[in-house]
């Protein structure tokens, strides 16, 4: 300790860029914008590079060309997306559910009450070095958003998952199983692993989900009289006896509505210094951008470049969101989606 005379110099502190973006994200953003740049050093309308891999080696049928090299992985479809530092790995697995033999009689001539399309049950896990398995709010919200978005995108028809041809794999022909009128359908689960969380996470997760879905193959189904005991990880019950088992090799490609394949893009809106001009930022990335851009536009565009979802968040009261800015954003999105999907 120096015996100061109470006249300590208050010098200014200089922060490196990455520290400044954490301690004063607004300042970091503003300084970059003034230079015509962004904290991530991309241009305003520049998207992040993106690589998509649908032959990730995770799926059961990935290495398969001739039905000779099926692995025993339970993954029916998968994909890996890399963008910047972020890696998103999506694996789709399946389950079998008895379709409730409960029906309602409806006299009304309306369309069917229930939707013709269904969705996948996703679980998003973002690795961030935390012990214990309880999902964070962000993970829960992402999972739910993925579920709802895929459903409303009308990509996965319910009837594609219904199992209508079940081969009877029983030696005992006298025991006719005809009175067993139980019907079954597949349910699909997605497990999405996110490494190095950065940037527009929903866009990547949704992209990997849709891409994986396109690769899903559903196995052939048999009834069995063998006593199989398997360990069901998800239930407390432990051992269950499946009535049906899946063929290890034979499969069908999952039929999806290709026309509705779509892609999500999120944009941030900020005001530049004088507040007159609104700047659109593509693929928000990093702390400064993600915390300071409170006004957001999320657009989902399908293969035919039609808008399927539009979400405008006017979080920043200084950013006026008018028709012009939305149209501009949508156009940016369409160009990008055209590049990615077509």
């Amino acid at each position: 300790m120096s015996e100061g005379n109470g006249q300590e110099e208050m010098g200014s502190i200089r922060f490196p860029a990455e520290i400044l973006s954490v301690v004063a994200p607004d300042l970091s953003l503003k300084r970059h914008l003034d230079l015509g740049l962004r904290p991530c050093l991309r241009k305003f309308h520049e998207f992040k590079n993106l690589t998509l891999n649908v032959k990730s080696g995770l799926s059961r049928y990935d290495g398969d060309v001739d039905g000779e090299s099926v692995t025993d992985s339970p993954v029916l479809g998968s994909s890996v997306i890399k963008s910047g530092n972020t890696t998103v790995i999506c694996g789709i697995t399946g389950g079998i559910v008895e379709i409730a033999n409960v029906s309602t009689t409806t006299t009304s001539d309306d369309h069917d009450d229930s939707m013709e399309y269904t969705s996948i049950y996703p679980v998003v896990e973002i690795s961030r070095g935390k012990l214990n398995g309880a999902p964070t709010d962000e993970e829960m919200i992402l999972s739910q958003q993925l579920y709802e978005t895929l459903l409303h995108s009308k990509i996965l028809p319910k009837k594609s998952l219904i199992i209508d041809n079940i081969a009877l794999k029983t030696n005992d022909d006298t025991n006719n199983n005809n009175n067993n009128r139980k019907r079954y359908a597949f349910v699909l689960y997605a497990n999405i692993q996110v490494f190095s969380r950065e940037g527009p996470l929903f866009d990547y997760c949704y992209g990997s989900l849709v891409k994986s879905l396109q690769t899903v193959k559903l196995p052939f189904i048999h009834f069995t009289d063998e006593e199989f005991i398997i360990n069901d990880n998800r239930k407390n019950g432990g051992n269950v006896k499946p009535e049906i088992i899946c063929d290890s090799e034979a499969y069908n490609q999952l039929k999806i509505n290709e026309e509705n394949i779509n892609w999500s893009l999120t944009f941030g809106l900020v005001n530049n210094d004088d507040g007159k001009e609104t700047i659109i930022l593509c693929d928000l990335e990093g702390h400064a951008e993600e915390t300071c851009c409170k006004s957001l536009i999320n657009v989902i565009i399908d293969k035919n470049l039609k808008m399927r979802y539009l979400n405008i968040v006017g979080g920043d009261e200084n950013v006026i969101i008018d028709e012009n800015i939305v149209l501009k954003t949508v156009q940016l999105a369409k160009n990008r989606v055209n590049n990615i999907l077509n």
Partner: protein
Amino acid sequence: MNVQDRRRLLGPANASPIVFSDVKEKKSKKIQAKPDDEISKMFINTGLVKNCDGSAYIEVGNTIIQVSIYGPRPIRGSFIDKAILSTECRFLPYLSQPNDSISRLTSSTSLITNYNGKLNLSNIEQKISSYIESCFLSCIYLENYPKSSIDIFIKILSVDTNLLNLVNDVVHCCSLAMVDAQIESKDLITSGNLRYLKSNNHIIMDPKCKDKDKDITNEVVEEGKLDLVVSFMNSRNDEIVGFWCEGNDTLEDDVLEKLIERCNDMSKEIRKNINFYLIESLE
């Protein structure tokens, strides 16, 4: 009442997982054909994951492992004079974990409800975690990091081998991540793994075959089969930091010595490769 998990989308409660009939023998063999005295090729990469202090990625056949290390990072609370090491190994939830039957024979409760030790880890996950933890406890200079913690997160993304062979790969992945995190250690840990068949005194190095224990009721009991993984610090006089043996028979002292010897050979072989990779990546 079954309490519904309200934080995950689990889908219909009455759904059962897909059960596949076994992949036919010849086909599975075809991919994995490898002489018994050879070590399989691996693909390694470090530093892929950015939001941690060190990471590594290993692909061996269809087995994929990712390790992230967070630390040394400060801990809250009272002063401690050396770092706390913790390890958490997780399989992706849909993977069937090798040697499931072992865990099921030892505990009749299912995986999720297993609350002893670390929350929500299965028996297998816990066993791997504690093996790795004990290996690295004796290797890291923990006293250099007072009031901190070092956390190792192991993620098994895909698995196509038996338990001890997987552990062998996990050890290497962790070692690489440890180097990437630049945590001061006595040495780099590598290990060797083999399967010993007592009946014909046969040794399979780096056995890639899966265990035939899917089904307890008609389990294929292989007499006199022993699996062994031994982890070393090869630059420190081949000190052993980890030893794990699974099997259904006893071992004579001299045989054991021989087996450890073979594991050490394998460990050194792998160490050479890892050294090569690390030097390469420096340039």
